């Protein structure tokens, strides 16, 4: 599926919630789906520090696709990471250089990616893009 197909799928899934707590409940469940970064990779290099929650992100290029692993010490943050990785994981670098991330807004979680919310998620999305650019130029050399 394309990035946008998955985004649309997520929007569809979330459309059934009309209560915030149900939505969070679902996000909390999703947190378990995150391809969790190994403890030894939870290094400072991989740490994206927000003021409020920590996010770790690791990337590897395998067969021309980027495999991300991640984690967070806050569960809701981690659940949102699960959603982000569902969209971004195991894709070719060039797919991740230029995309329109719209599902977060549509499912009402835009606060979590606002530049003023220091939970590390916005930085994580930026970091994903940077990895993509780096790997892409590596592939083309």
């Amino acid at each position, binding site marked *: 599926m394309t990035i946008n197909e998955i985004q649309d799928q997520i929007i569809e899934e979330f459309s059934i919630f009309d209560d915030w*707590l149900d939505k969070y409940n679902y996000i909390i469940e999703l947190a378990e789906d995150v391809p969790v970064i190994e403890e030894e990779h939870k290094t400072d290099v991989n740490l994206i520090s927000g003021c*409020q929650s920590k996010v770790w992100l690791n990337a590897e290029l395998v067969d021309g696709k980027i495999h991300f692993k991640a984690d967070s*010490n806050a569960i809701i943050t981690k659940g949102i990471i699960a959603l982000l990785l569902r969209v971004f994981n195991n894709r070719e670098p060039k797919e991740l250089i230029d995309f329109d991330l719209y599902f977060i807004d549509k499912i009402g979680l835009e606060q979590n990616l606002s530049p003023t919310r220091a939970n590390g998620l916005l930085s994580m999305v930026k970091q994903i893009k940077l990895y993509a650019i780096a790997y892409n130029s590596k592939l083309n050399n």
Partner: protein
Amino acid sequence: MDFDINKIREDFPILKQNLYSGQLVYFDNGATTQKPNSVINIINEYYSKYNSNIHRGVHYLSEKMTQAYETARKTVKTFINANSDTEIIFTSGTTESINLVAFSFGEIFINEGDEILISEMEHHSNIVPWQMLCERKKAKLKVIKLNHFGELLLGELDELLTDKTKLVAITHVSNTLGTINPIKDIIKKAHAKGAYVLIDGAQGIQHQKVDVKDLDCDFYAFSGHKIYGPTGIGILYGKEELLNKMPPYKGGGDMIKSVTIEKTVYNELPFKFEAGTSNFVGAVGLDHAIRYVQNIGIDKIAEYESDLATYATDAISRIEGVKIFGQSPNKSSIISFNIENIHHFDAGMVLDKMNIAVRTGTHCTEPIMKFFGIDGTIRASLSFYNTKQEVDKLVEGIKKVKELFG
């Protein structure tokens, strides 16, 4: 006057605000307080009718505005029982008040090898200015440590205070732990050793009677926005004798007597420390905030808040898995806690969706976090317009949080 909570709540328009699914429960008073109508309206009125720059104007509006500004100074003076108007400096907030002292007091009183004593429970605003000063002057920063109840280890004070201690800078009330420090004792001990004392009153002034003459502190700093007043205005109280010795902090209009390119003569107190156009409308707002507090009576406020805090502490600590940080018997209405195995940020996000505003994180007191080995807490800070019913909603909220993440 009777303390009529319903009438009081009517004075604060924001408390009627509906968020996601119900009325706002505002427990983030430590960060900033809400404003009564009298404050909101006076700001409106002054901008609509009397706005004009102060002090140098010959015309009606300027005169009117200047009088309002100087009346605000008198209100503050009376409120904290200072000796004279000249001891009340308008600043932009506690942080600026402390930085002013760090710079101006520092310039003249601090030399290489001198010591400044702070505590482990200080807000960053009462740590970083002293670090910067110590770096500039090659002075030494020393620290009064905490115990596990969140109290200062004052037994060590006699050792920490040396002949080199020039200043003790200590918070009146901890914004994270709620601890009310025995500042009168600390001031006495510091003075006995020849050290001056600055009290960070950001969390003190709005919750209890402050009498600077009785305390005998050398400086007392607080923020307007934390005592039901507007943003961008704060106070530095300083003893006249000390303020007179200190060089100015900022240069500019209003703080000078005469200027030539070669030589500038500084103005007298309090103007020497008020460079540039003051936040004069902010000062008028603060004036009316303090009057509001005086009308209810600060002692009545203290009594109500203490009662409410006891109720809240009791209810929250009954919830299984909740750990409260700060357990001094001398506590203000600030309750910091964590829920077992649940990240404070997760808890805060869920409480938010239940219309409850609490703060989560380090509360600008990282040394406290380090001491307790945590990276944040959930903080409910209560004010006199909060109610037991609101506390009940918080308790319900915490239970819901436990359910969700359990």
